[in-house]
């Protein structure tokens, strides 16, 4: 676009700002409050069966090696960059670009996963301050393994190696809703580094090429030169509920879960609640009064702090809104490049990691028991983390629009 045309487009955009005010009175931005949808109580019966053993199943897909990740090995200090990590006295530094634009040396290690999850989670603190968010750190990690080029033994640790090997078998049992695909546009086909092409063959991504890829990118309104890893998950998690109430027409349903392990931070009143799951661990983190989710995310230790919660654990009941989040983000188009050292723009194409995640928490068939006299009420914005039984960070996010407590 020439400077003259740019100026004219700018003038058009400015002109729109000055349109008559009455034309705007009934118009709001689309998707202003995305993600949180309150289900009608009548649909609950159909939803009762949806206790997916999320951790187990995703783990089969993303991280099949049982016990391959040891939380105890996580470092205490968060490294300055998720892909800059000191290991055994040597320091692998990413961000040094080779001729093909990809980092020359990438260290994605078992121990790096937790800091990676911590730092990517801290990015949730940015963005639309009104939006609910959900993403998969493990999915991002796995996608970066792909983009890192040659996943040789000297660059990818055992956990990453096992992940790639198991994925290569195409095993994806029991979770048809979790899919991963690679969009390979024509502009990228002739410019990919050989190591990346080898990875294309090694991974069981659904691969879209040529016109099919172009059509898909067009449908998603993305540039035609985008080499894109697309990950989708639609997860529904059931929690055994004590009691369920409906706020009435238009109001949000909520439910009470007993036997929740709570840690209280004496300093700022933040609560860490661990919910009982058969396979995996679900944490909800309720910021103390005067503390925001953004404050907690800004500390950069969302995952690594889970097993270092202050205070003695106690068991209590928790009341939750029934929530469903939907989120979509191209991570390499936003903050991740600065964090990981991976750039978006390559020669002839640009890379992307697009995650489309939905996460729903709802009550399993309510037990006929009375509601406890005291309970913790998640009546303000909170964070959540879902780990598999081996500690793999499957999902994390923030619920910024919980229900308003009835008066």
């Amino acid at each position: 676009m020439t400077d003259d045309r740019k100026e004219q487009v700018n003038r058009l955009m400015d002109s729109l700002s000055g349109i008559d005010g009455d034309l705007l009175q009934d118009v709001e931005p689309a998707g202003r409050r995305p993600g949180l949808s309150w289900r009608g109580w009548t649909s609950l019966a159909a939803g009762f069966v949806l206790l997916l053993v999320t951790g187990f199943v995703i783990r089969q897909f993303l991280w099949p090696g049982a016990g391959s990740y040891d939380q105890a090995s996580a470092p205490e200090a968060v490294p300055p960059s998720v892909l800059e990590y000191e290991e055994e006295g040597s320091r692998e530094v990413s961000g040094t670009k080779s001729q093909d634009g990809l980092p020359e040396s990438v260290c994605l290690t078992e121990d790096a996963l937790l800091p990676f999850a911590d730092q990517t989670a801290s990015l949730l603190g940015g963005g639309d301050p009104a939006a609910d968010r959900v993403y998969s750190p493990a999915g991002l990690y796995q996608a970066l393994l792909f983009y890192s080029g040659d996943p040789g033994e000297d660059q990818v640790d055992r956990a990453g190696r096992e992940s790639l090997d198991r994925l290569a078998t195409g095993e994806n049992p029991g979770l048809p809703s979790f899919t991963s695909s690679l969009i390979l546009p024509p502009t990228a086909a002739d410019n990919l580094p050989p190591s990346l092409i080898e990875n294309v063959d090694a991974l069981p991504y659904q691969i879209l090429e040529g016109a099919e890829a172009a059509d898909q990118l067009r449908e998603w309104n993305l540039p035609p030169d985008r080499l894109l890893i697309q990950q989708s998950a639609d997860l529904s998690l059931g929690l055994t509920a004590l009691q369920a109430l409906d706020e009435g027409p238009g109001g949000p349903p909520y439910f009470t879960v007993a036997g929740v392990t709570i840690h209280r931070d004496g300093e700022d009143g933040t609560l860490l609640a661990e919910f009982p799951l058969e396979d995996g661990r679900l944490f909800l983190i309720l910021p103390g009064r005067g503390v925001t989710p953004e404050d907690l995310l800004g500390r950069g230790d969302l995952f690594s702090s889970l097993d270092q919660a202050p205070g003695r654990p106690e068991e209590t009941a928790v009341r939750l809104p029934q929530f469903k989040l939907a989120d979509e983000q191209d991570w390499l188009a936003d903050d991740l490049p600065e964090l990981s050292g991976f750039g978006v723009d390559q020669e002839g194409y640009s890379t992307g990691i697009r995650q489309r995640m939905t996460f729903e928490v709802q009550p399993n068939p309510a037990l006929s028991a009375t509601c406890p006299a005291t309970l913790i009420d998640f009546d303000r914005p909170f964070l959540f983390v879902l780990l598999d039984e081996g500690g793999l960070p499957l999902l994390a996010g923030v619920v910024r629009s919980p229900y308003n407590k009835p008066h």
Partner: protein
Amino acid sequence: MEGGDQDRVTAIGDRTDEGILDLYFERSEEAIEATMVKYGALLRSLSWNILKDREDVEECVNDTYLAAWKKIPPERPRYFKAYLCKIVRNASLDKLRAKKREKRGGGQIALIFEEMEELLASDSDPVRMVETAELSRLISDYLRRQPDRRRIIFLKRYYYASPLREIAREEGTTEGAVKVLLYRMRGELKEELRKEGYGD
């Protein structure tokens, strides 16, 4: 937020636009607070669609409150919501240009700029370009003649810079259908502008 504070916020948020404007005229600092409660989320959302940067958004929104405080009085906008949106939208566009970051944010705002470029004549002549205010009037006239649904979809896309996917979801249709509708509207608007001497 304690119960008392919550009640107070609710009361502030319940104010009508006229009530808020009265506060400005009284030079009550509660005017800003009431504006934030009632329109803060809307302004942040609009700015976010353009800038995709939390700090920039906060800066633009805060500048908007300050601008409103400075301008009211003597101004007393007839449509307070549109008045605030205009300020924050212009501030966000200015910041976007200043930072030369049109390609950020998943390319959404860059795409909107490209779509708007279609309204330009192929061989534009700046001499024949009308003034911005006149252009605003022409666009307003065009939108006023549109059915509500068309007007709303157009403004969601080009005023609020909303993603096509979200517009389609809220309108209960497909992205493709929204694209086609917007394409037609751009063509119609281009023709209208041409008749009025804008471009060819």
